[in-house]
């Protein structure tokens, strides 16, 4: 790599500095706008010069994202942003690398690179725009669409059981797993900051409304009237409380999560499940909250926030260390010696 790492003059940047000159091409009303705005506004807070930031995406509506960021960027091919970012980060650990991907891009065609990125734990941020549909190709169901979904490609309803992206990520040994939503800008910004700070692959699933092909997929969590009844916001060390009047909580009864009313029942806030970001077993329960008894009367609220976080060395750090160790072991590189090999003769 040519010498590009120099003393950077730190200059105060604003969100506007991170907006490129390109016209934005999403449908009016698309959830992508709000996410873009939050990302642009969080950038200055990272304190990273914009030339040291790279956005890499695959293909999909969401994957247009890099064009709108005035940083380095690549709008690559479908499903491969994760693999491209792996090589980029291995070669340039100094860069702040952000992967933008959709539910199709990351979990359909890109599923393999996705799980391998997570296990290798490159220090990158993955923003998974989950709109439970293929937007760009005009509305086929995706691996996160609910069973029985009627779309262009499944007029009689889809047949495949969907992935639970966070459960899959946990299974792939991800070290940072979070969920946010396009319509909660403050929360989203907070999670983005935490994601960048995490050393390792930060997976942020962002519920994103596709108002053209899957409008209202997440209205349960955005409609003013009842979103507070349907969502629980996780905070490390804090009890799981929710509801418009913060009058409901969740307790853990063995391995089973139960909703309790802080008003009526005989429980106090101290009895509630206290969120522990570092507990993988509990995270396993949290990520399946809405599956286990979604149809029950006591259907549990959807959790948002950081489900799980773990410290584990990053791939690029191990690589850098290994390269240094090899120099110690084998000596500084000497091309002439290498070309000559062990046995030479003269003619």
């Amino acid at each position: 790599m040519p010498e590009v790492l120099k003393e950077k003059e730190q200059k105060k940047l604003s969100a506007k500095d991170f907006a490129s000159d390109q016209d934005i091409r999403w449908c009016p009303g698309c959830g992508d706008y709000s996410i873009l705005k939050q990302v642009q506004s969080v950038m200055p807070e990272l304190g990273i010069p914009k030339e040291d930031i790279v956005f890499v995406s695959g293909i999909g509506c969401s994957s247009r994202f890099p064009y709108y960021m005035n940083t380095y960027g690549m709008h690559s091919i479908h499903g491969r942003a994760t693999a491209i970012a792996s090589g980029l980060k291995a070669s340039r650990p100094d860069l702040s690398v952000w992967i933008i991907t959709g539910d199709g891009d990351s979990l359909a065609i890109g599923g393999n690179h996705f799980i391998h990125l997570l296990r290798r734990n490159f220090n990158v941020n993955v923003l998974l725009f989950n709109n439970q549909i293929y937007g760009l190709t005009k509305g086929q169901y995706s691996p996160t669409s609910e069973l029985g979904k009627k779309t262009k490609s499944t007029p009689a309803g889809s047949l495949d059981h969907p992935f639970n992206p966070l459960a899959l990520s946990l299974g792939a040994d991800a070290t940072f797993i979070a969920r946010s939503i396009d319509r909660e800008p403050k929360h989203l910004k907070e999670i983005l900051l935490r994601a960048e700070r995490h050393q390792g692959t930060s997976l942020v699933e962002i519920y994103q409304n596709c108002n053209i092909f899957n409008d209202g997929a997440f209205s349960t969590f955005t409609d003013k009237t009842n979103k507070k009844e349907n969502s629980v916001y996780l905070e490390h060390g804090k009890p799981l409380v929710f509801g418009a009047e913060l009058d409901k909580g969740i307790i853990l009864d063995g391995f089973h999560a139960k909703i309790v009313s802080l008003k009526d029942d005989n429980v106090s806030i101290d009895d509630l499940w206290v969120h522990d970001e570092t507990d993988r077993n509990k995270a396993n329960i949290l990520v399946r909250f809405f599956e286990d008894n979604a149809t029950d009367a006591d259907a549990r609220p959807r959790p948002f926030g950081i489900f799980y976080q773990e410290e584990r060395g990053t791939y690029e750090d191990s690589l850098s260390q290994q390269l240094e160790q090899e120099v110690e072991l084998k000596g500084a590189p000497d091309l002439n010696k290498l070309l000559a090999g062990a046995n030479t003769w003269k003619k």
Partner: protein
Amino acid sequence: MTLEKENTQVKNVLDKVTILYAGDSGDGIQLIGNQFTNNTALYGNDLSTFPDFPAEIRAPLGTLAGVSGFQINFGNSSIFTPGDLCDVLVAMNAASLKKNLSRLKKRGTIIVNTAGFDKKNLRLAGIDPADNPLTNSSLEGFKVHEIDITKMTRENLKESSLGSKERDRCKNMFVLGFIYWIYNRSLDSTIDFLERKFKGKQEVLQANLKVLKSGYHFADTSETFSNRFEVKPAEMQPGKYRNIVGNQATALGLIAAAHRSDMNLFYGGYPITPASDILHELAKHKNFGIKTFQAEDEIAGVCSAIGASFGGDLATTASSGPGIALKGEAIGLAVMMELPLVLVNVQRGGPSTGLPTKTEQSDLLQAMYGRNGEAPMPVIAAQSPSDCFEMAYEACRIAIEHMTPVFLLTDGYIANGAEPWKFPSAEALKPIVLKVKDARAEEDAPYLPYKRNEDLVREWAVPGTAGAEHRLGGLEKDKETGNVSYDPENHQEMVKIRAAKVNRIAKHIPKQELDSGTTSSKLLILGWGSTYGSIKTAAKELQSEGVDVAHAQIRYIHPFPENLGEILSNFDKVIIPELNDGQLIKLIRDRYLIDAKGLNKIKGLPFRAQEIKEEVLNHLK
């Protein structure tokens, strides 16, 4: 059958010799092949080798499928192939004799391990025990030396504390010692090797050394051999030499190019036969700052390399046919983004999984056209093991200087074959001109990543360069800003520019030359890649027999050297030998509209010079 028991130990001087070591894949044939090769190289002969082993890790013991072979051709003058037929065949068991007898010259020498011809071995080789070739008269006419190598080895190691399996494993050393004596060689290089290999394993080391020497002495004292032979060192260009295997040379070429261009080398790939050794070799030299990334598949391999290239590394990947097929989509992206990237295809027998351990040249058209849309990129090919170094280096140079992905084609034959190599000094390497964008001030005019120089090459700005922030991608791009453009005129212009950029590389590569013969010769043999040695040998032999043929070998296939058409126009007859069903010939006929004729061998094996000679003579009839 002639069993020679004479007493004369005349030292015969020969011009060249071909030996084929053959045995079961557990017999350590490749190891003694490599030892003999190094020894021969150090001795100063010119040489060429051809290892040939089964697809299985350990194919069933004693069977034809399990036979492993290693052929070496060495001489006192230039050697270009591992030889058509052998002078000496070492056969460790019945299957290896059965499989290889047809490759032995008339009146050639056979050295057999009689222990490998017991009933069990005969049966495994599919030979009726009543028809043991050692006892029926089928070997008449050959010089056969029967030795119970297994027994001798065991005798030697009676005292050893090693287990019987480990003892038996030393029997290849007996053969090696035996051959060393015959060809009048020093044991030193192998003793050195064994000492390094078995450092800390004294028992094993001593056993090997003992058997090696015992083989040597047995040849001396047993007097089974009437003659000792010597092949005098070859006249070669003065300089320092080493022995080199093709894949190793490819790896070194990549490392050298990174060094010369002051870049970090990144390799992203997924193991596949016969390309894996490039990864293995690179991984050995991590002290050069080489980042080898064993990806989850070939797509991730090439994509990680694209990411590294975007980051400013010299990015490379290697694979073989099926893996290359998977990379097609991503290569198209690299074409579109105009980023440097080196892709090595170590070709093997196809289609599909095909014949993974056999050689073939059948991925040329895939390299040319195996992508969607108009996605032209340079394609070059190495012609011998050591040429892999040169062409890997060239691939990097072209990629960097012309901002393009480049295909380098080698194949199983030269990738696993070895030859002496007059290696260059680091200082003598061709310069590689790397121009990377400097930081720019905020006030500057908007950065134009797709502005081009006179060779139509765009500029390289890597992340970290202030003021040059830009976005790349796979959608068609505006010809200056690089932004997405759906403009019809722009698209046509960009398609033409990308093609012209690659075509202009012709100005920066060597002119095509005739390897032998003249432009007034009656017929041109036109080859590419690994057929070089076979064609060269055939041409030289024909010429020495008074047949007026010329030979040209193409290493730069896309674009062709500027003068290729002119050269071709001199010949009435052009024959194109290829290890495929006719691929270069399609490019030549299309481009130059000449009625070239193909000579095609699709057997997973390199050409014999003889096959080419016969075809030429047919055409001149």
